[in-house]
């Protein structure tokens, strides 16, 4: 009883302060960490804007969530007992991030649809394996996701947004000196920026195009092994992969699709890609003297012949159209011919002439029809220009006749004026 009574006013006051001060300062959104750190320079600088932009900030987390310490009281910000951890070293990062992001129950509170296996995947990746060996130069979470300004992957400003992924990876992977220590080339990014995939993704904004993480994986990043390349490419290029599987190349190509198309510098095949010319894919292994080389030549010849047909038709139709002729029917046929060309190019992966030829023979009919429709349109155009001479000449004949008639008219008018003057004079005389 006495004890209770010695719960002095001062004691009660202290309890009240402890209870009231946090609510008081929460009401003020006080963040003494930012007050100092926004004024510091270099790697110690963290601004309020960065804090506000971060996805963690939106969820009510703050500096102390990762760094510990006391956010309200400047004097006790880094005091012992406040749980202050200070700078988090690279070795600690995956574990720290994983303490929430690999905990299903933890993530359920914030975003139930987010995966929680990133840390596990990381440990299987080349980055993770090296990291386990004690190498701190490999990528950890913050290298890709950012440190304080972490945004959601769907935010176009995030370094892991699909449009930005390749730029993020190349921060290390284009560093020749760094890559040399791992005996990896540093040309992948340069190659990728030269490719059709980069053009589709970064230049045309087609988010369905592949970037580094599409083929390599993101957290579990490994280069696909030789046998896996075809599997990776065939996710989108289904038909090409099916035809490739039927072909004699499947058993022979150690690197699958990348054997001809390269892994990063994938460009649109030009006319000479399938041929025995210098710089061609087939010419790397085949020559004129072997049967397969001759098949390559035959396919090239057949494709080229068809491409010329289609190109000629297209030029002619364009000319006809700008001259004001109707080429709608012909454009439909040309579209069909183009479809055949696309399909034939896909069938090149069978490495069999008959497959390519069959498709192009089917496409020849609309191609030829388009060309003759274009020729008919041009004939109609010349007809119109020629027919116009008929009324044109008739009209000019009228102009001539008018000129002639006016001259005659006025000549006789003058003629009839003079006699009347003479007659008047005679009359007057």
């Amino acid at each position: 009883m006495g004890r209770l009574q010695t719960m002095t006013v001062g004691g009660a006051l202290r309890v009240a302060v402890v209870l009231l001060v946090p609510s008081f300062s929460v009401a003020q959104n006080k963040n003494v960490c930012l007050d100092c750190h926004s004024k510091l320079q270099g790697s110690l600088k963290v601004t309020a804007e960065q804090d506000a932009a971060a996805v963690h900030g939106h969820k009510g987390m703050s500096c102390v969530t990762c760094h510990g310490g006391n956010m309200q009281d400047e004097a006790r910000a880094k005091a012992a007992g406040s749980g202050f951890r200070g700078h988090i070293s690279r070795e600690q990062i995956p574990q720290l991030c994983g303490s929430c992001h690999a905990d299903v129950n933890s993530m359920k509170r914030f975003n139930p649809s987010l995966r929680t296996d990133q840390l596990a995947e990381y440990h299987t990746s080349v980055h993770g394996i090296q990291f386990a060996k004690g190498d701190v130069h490999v990528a950890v979470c913050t290298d890709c996701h950012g440190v304080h300004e972490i945004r959601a992957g769907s935010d176009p400003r995030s370094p892991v947004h699909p449009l930005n992924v390749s730029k993020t990876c190349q921060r290390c992977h284009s560093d020749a000196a760094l890559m040399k220590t791992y005996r990896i080339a540093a040309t992948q990014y340069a190659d990728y920026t030269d490719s059709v995939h980069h053009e589709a993704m970064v230049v045309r904004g087609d988010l369905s195009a592949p970037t580094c993480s599409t083929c390599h994986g993101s957290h579990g990043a490994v280069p696909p092994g030789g046998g896996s390349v075809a599997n990776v490419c065939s996710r989108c290029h289904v038909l090409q992969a099916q035809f490739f599987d039927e072909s004699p190349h499947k058993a022979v190509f150690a690197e699958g699709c990348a054997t001809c198309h390269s892994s990063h510098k994938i460009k649109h095949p030009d006319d000479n890609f399938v041929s025995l010319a210098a710089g061609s894919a087939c010419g790397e292994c085949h020559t004129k003297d072997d049967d397969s080389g001759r098949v390559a030549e035959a396919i090239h010849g057949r494709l080229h012949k068809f491409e010329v047909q289609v190109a000629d038709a297209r030029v002619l139709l364009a000319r006809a159209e700008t001259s004001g002729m109707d080429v709608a029917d012909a454009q439909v046929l040309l579209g069909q011919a183009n479809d055949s060309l696309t399909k034939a190019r896909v069938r090149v992966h069978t490495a069999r002439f008959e497959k390519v030829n069959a498709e192009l023979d089917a496409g020849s009919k609309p191609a030829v029809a388009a060309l003759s429709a274009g020729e008919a349109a041009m004939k109609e155009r010349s007809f119109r220009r020629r027919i116009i001479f008929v009324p044109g000449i008739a009209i000019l004949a009228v102009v001539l006749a008018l000129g002639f008639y006016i001259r005659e008219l006025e000549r006789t008018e003058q003629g009839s004026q003079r006699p009347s003057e003479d007659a008047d004079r005679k009359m007057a005389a």
Partner: protein
Amino acid sequence: MDAAARVQMWIDERLNLQELLAPLREKTVPVHRHSQWYFLGGLTLFLFTIQLCSGVLLLLYYRPSANEAFESVQNITNHVQFGWLVRSVHSWSANLMVFCAFAHMFSVAFARAYRKPRELTWMTGMFLLFLVLGFGFSGYLLPWNTRAYFATKVGTEVPGQLPVVGHWIMVIMRGGEDVTGATLTRFFALHVTILPALAIGMVMTHLLLVQKFGTSVPASVESEWQANPRLRKEIKFFPNFFLRELMGWYVVLAFLIALAAFLPWELGTKADPFAPAPAGIKPEWYFLAQFQTLRMIPAKIFHIDGEVLGILGFGLGGALWLALPFIETLLGTRGARYVRVGAVLALTYLASMSVIGYMAK
């Protein structure tokens, strides 16, 4: 008496045609070093007749709804026999008519033929010029292609900038807030009934006035003739001047069908209201000067919206030009000189702004 004379007599007995036509028989046209310019008015009328005839022919196949307009013009150009000829003649003749109307107006302005007693002739002529521009603007939308759609969008937005009445005017012009099928219907009615009715009435008034006052002679020539009456030369309108006019008309006709065959009017692509406007959209050449002026006016002049000032400027310019004869009288003895300077400035301005507008991106 041959058949022709007999028919003539039959008509005359009933309608007194000879009496009615007598003034025309006696009508004369002065001949001097500037009389070539006299052909422009008749030429504009001839082109207007071509527009009426080709327009009626187009009407036989054209469908004035947003869904079918483009396809119907495509049908005319590609499937109907000689449809390409009728359509291109109509489009080219429209442009030639605008050009001739302007040339005719400027030649009258420089020859000062608007002086007393011909003030009304000048004003009816100016109204006709506005009507011709209205024809051009309303007809341009009818094929419902991308160019026409966006040109109309910009063109109807301009008057919308006026204070107080602007929005109301724009909605009335467009038949709604935006350019839609309702706009097409409205422009079609305008182009095919309202404007032709007004134009035909105005043309008849204009011609009656020309007939009443006779053809004006430039002051310099008139003073020469006053000094030396033997220099005065006139030819009969019918048949001499008219036959010459007919020559000119036929030459222009040949030119028109040559243009139709060698430089056919483009069809373009069907208008898509949801597509973004193509870059560098410009109105037809006869609106380029105003368009370019509006683009060059700064956004704000003394706190007033630049575009509004521009539009009001055009309105004021048009009104002043309409009242030209009265302004010259008001300006006193120097009036003629000022008007001549004004005409030169106006012509130079329009020509140079059109060229700049054409060349600008």
